[in-house]
């Protein structure tokens, strides 16, 4: 009974605001309508900015997760003494506020040798930093769970070099962790506002920026876009989960220990 009430409260907490927005977008003058959703079909900006966000999210996930998986494994195997440093570094993005990070990055990248301010590249790099804590935790937990040292040594005794061991033995067994890191990173980028506003702004407008802009002029359409954004992020997450489930043999790693 208590369990059920807790779950019900939790769902209410999560779904109430969403259903509020949903209701707001579906009702117009007391009548049910899909007009605000239909509006998005003819909206070229909607498609373009959504595409921007998806590209940024994909780039961030690929870069952030592969960087952190490799680094964490390398430190785990070869440089144990650096582990506290890595842990600290990986958690810095949690400590530094987004605005501070943005201002710092603008200072650094507004002039040569790397004039990146206003480019999507800088945004991907900044987002990669933001996803490090998630990627680090997920990979580190995975490494601790599979006795990666023994697995790596076993592969090594069978003739496998560093990259081969990493790609054929370590990565497949870290797959559940890598997947969750990817999901978190993806969702993070799809909803990120501050860095996008400060670093790139209108030069490479992202979906959250567009949403903010629409919301001011046309609240009904803005709310509909928010619901769409939620659905697209959710569908993408399901797609990531689905592809990773189909990766060869990945679930065995999770099932063993």
């Amino acid at each position: 009974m208590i369990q059920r009430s807790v779950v019900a409260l939790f769902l209410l907490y999560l779904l109430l605001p969403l259903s509020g927005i949903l209701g707001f977008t579906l009702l117009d003058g007391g009548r049910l309508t899909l007009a605000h959703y239909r509006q998005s079909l003819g909206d070229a900006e909607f498609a373009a900015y959504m595409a921007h966000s998806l590209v940024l999210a994909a780039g961030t996930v690929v870069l952030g997760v592969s960087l952190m998986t490799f680094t964490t494994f390398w430190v785990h195997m070869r440089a144990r003494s650096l582990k506290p440093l890595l842990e600290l570094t990986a958690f810095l993005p949690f400590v530094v506020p987004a605005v501070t990070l943005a201002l710092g990055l603008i200072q650094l990248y507004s002039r040569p040798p790397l004039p990146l301010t206003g480019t999507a590249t800088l945004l991907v790099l900044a987002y990669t930093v933001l996803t490090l804590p998630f990627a680090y935790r997920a990979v580190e937990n995975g490494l601790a769970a599979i006795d990666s040292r023994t697995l790596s040594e076993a592969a090594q005794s069978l003739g496998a070099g560093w990259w081969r061991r990493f790609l054929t033995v370590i990565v497949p067994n870290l797959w559940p962790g890598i997947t969750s890191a990817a999901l978190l990173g993806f969702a993070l980028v799809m909803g990120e506002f501050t860095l996008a506003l400060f670093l790139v702004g209108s030069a490479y407008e992202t979906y959250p920026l567009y949403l903010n802009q629409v919301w001011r002029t046309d609240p009904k359409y803005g709310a509909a876009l928010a619901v769409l954004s939620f659905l697209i992020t959710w569908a993408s997450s399901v797609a990531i989960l689905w592809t990773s489930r189909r990766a060869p043999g990945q679930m065995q790693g999770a099932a063993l220990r």
Partner: protein
Amino acid sequence: MAFLVLEGLSKTFGHTAALSDVTLSVERGELVSLLGPSGCGKTTTLRIVAGFETPDRGRVLLDGRDLTGVPPERRGFGMVFQHYSLFPNMTAAQNIGYGLRVARRPAREIRRRVGELLELIGLLDAGERYPHQLSGGMQQRVALARALAIEPRILLLDEPLSALDAKVRVTLRNEIRRIQTRLGITALYVTHDQEEALSLSDRVVVMSRGCIEQVGPPEEVYGEPRTEFTASFIGSMNRLAGVAGADGTLAYRGQILRLPPDAAVPAGRAATLVVRPEAITLTVDGGPPPSGRANVLAGTLVTRTFLGPVVRLIVDVDGEYLSVDVPGAQRRAYPQGGRVWLSFDPGAAIVMVPSAAMEDGGT
């Protein structure tokens, strides 16, 4: 020259000396086990041979070639680990074929070889199963097959049976010996289990505190331990510590015992007479001490422990507990608390003269 030679290996971790000056030769086709308690340096030795550790001093030679600087992946040594080290994301067959895929062997050859190996380890039906669907014993069989698949020049086994239960352990160790003999493969086997080492090795290397105590065939290491550590670590031993007399005798707790005929201990030196429990004969004290055997002690039977084929009796001899093994069938012949005679042949005992560097080993 021997096939595998370890030459003066030394290794220190932090301030702890893990190995000091370990030298050993292994002949082609031989199974040599490294036996000792945890922390004796046996695993470090194996890991140096595998290439996972670099010795501070000394070198490893294979067929006369120095392996220093050759990374593990280029040594061509198969290794079986203590913990299940199968790749969880691959089936048993894929695990076995891994080394062959790394070596870019043709797919057909890999399939054939994997099939042969699955048959060799008796798991022909289990090829498509994942490690978590196999029992511990089966996993270690697959790990063995995986190491053998690359036709290793040397097979290294790091306590491969220690995580298994007793019955599987015995079956599998016979299996390992059978396969090793059949393939004529040279093997180095690390274990802390003396029974395992004695039953499957051509030679046993007894190690303690980073040094080799004794190297020899199982019978020799068991029957003629050369150090007190070997004596106490392998099998059970009674240690009768006393002072040597002038004419090949030992004063032990107010009684005079004869030392083995070939022992030459200067009078007045402290010496220990070491006797295996099965070398002592027990007689119920109903009359005079048994004649014909030179060394006789009187004692009281304290406890009996049934060990299956034998019963171990603990006898209190003037405050010191000695162990005596008698056949299990005779266990009722010796009442607890009864007076008994212990007798043994001086020739069945070994004398140890403690030195400054004497080891004090456990059992």
